[in-house]
């Protein structure tokens, strides 16, 4: 097993910390792995809950992702630990979506997204903060109503910032399909938000 700290030269202190923790976890240090869990659980939950808008299913998917990461510690090939964990989590979220699809009698509940925290650097102006939160809530509700494929593509592209090729690889479809899912998904969102577009304009 390569020494990750030696093979991956990085000046980023967060990545250096992650690699040290991962190296220790690979040597059997559970506390080091749990430190990584603590660092990334909120970020990964926020990612999954956008893809799987049912909070319980999203929690289960995140837990499954951490289990999977622990089982596959030896499979980490260097690079960014955050990206590695994100990819495992995205796979777990897509599995959760498929599971949900097989049980159509259990529909997505409306998003009770009071736990969403506005950006730390948001303007202190209460009107702006409230408007931003309202826009976010409306958008999340609309996202919960479009198809799984469109939602996944939109979340990965617009929210997570992956490029078309990466999304195509993660979702096992062509780049053309990814592009069409993104713009059709946005069209569907616009259809759902047409009454509330004043929130988004200007």
């Amino acid at each position, binding site marked *: *097993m*390569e020494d990750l700290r030696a*093979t991956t030269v990085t000046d980023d202190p967060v990545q250096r910390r992650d690699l040290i923790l991962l190296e220790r976890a*690979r*040597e*059997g240090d*559970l506390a080091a*792995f*749990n430190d990584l*869990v*603590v660092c990334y*659980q*909120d*970020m*990964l*939950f*926020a990612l999954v*809950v956008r893809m799987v808008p049912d*909070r319980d299913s999203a*929690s289960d998917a*995140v*837990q499954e992702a*951490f*289990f999977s990461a*622990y*089982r596959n*510690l*030896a499979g*980490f*090939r*260097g*690079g*960014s630990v955050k*990206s*590695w964990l994100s990819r495992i989590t995205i796979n777990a979220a897509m599995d959760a979506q498929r599971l949900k699809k097989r049980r159509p009698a259990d529909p997505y509940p409306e998003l009770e*997204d009071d*736990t*969403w*925290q506005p*950006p730390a*650097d948001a303007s202190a102006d209460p009107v702006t903060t409230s408007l931003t939160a309202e826009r*976010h809530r409306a*958008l999340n509700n609309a996202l919960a109503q479009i198809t799984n494929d469109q939602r996944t593509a939109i979340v990965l592209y*617009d*929210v*997570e*910032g992956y490029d078309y090729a990466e999304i195509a690889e993660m979702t096992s479809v062509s780049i053309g399909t990814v*592009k069409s899912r*993104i*713009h*059709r998904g*946005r*069209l569907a*969102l*616009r259809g759902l*938000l*047409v009454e509330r*577009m004043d929130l*988004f*304009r200007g």
Partner: protein
Amino acid sequence: MVDPGAGPNEAALAVAARHALHDEEQVAALATGNLEDEGDVARARQLVDRCAACRELHQDLEAIGGALRAGARFTATAPRDFRLTADDARRLGGTVSTRGFLARLRGSLVGIARPLGASMTALGLVGLLVGSASLGGAASAPLSVDSTVNGSPAAPGENNAGTRSVSPLSSDRSVALGPGATPEEGAAKAGDPSESDGDPGRSPAALLLGGSLGLLAAGLILLGLAFRRGRRDRAPA
């Protein structure tokens, strides 16, 4: 064209009817930046420029895209603690240390694969050269001995190879049987290659050639594996 005498409702209907014929997906693709073909971009641009409904759609889609990107900065608090317990770890990774050991072993093997492969390839090449030279020497030496034995050294310019086989096998056999051997003995001996002392399949040079070929192949395989592994490691995670 809308009839100037028509009422506002009729005008709106006419605009809506015209817009219904427009390709909204093309406008959406333009707003997302998904159009690559110059012609498609021009057509979509034309729709946005000339049709108020397409323009509004384009603006809305851009606004939604912006809101989605801004939403990335929103964070959510995980509803529970996802840390693994010792029981989880035992259940999932009871073999972590074994797997760690195997991974470590594989890592160290990968580490030496490149130098080992290069050494084996070099040794194989040298062996091939030495073996070929030895076999070439063994093939040419009996030829001259044979010529002397038959009492007629090849005259300069005479095509010796044309009258005698150039095959080292036949030359060697002539020598091994000796000048007193009868043609029957020779034929019997020649019919059983395993008894021939000069069989190149058994000679040290042939063994060296075979071994070198094996070494060369193994070395190249190791180098190939090390190269593949190196490329995979350089690829972004």
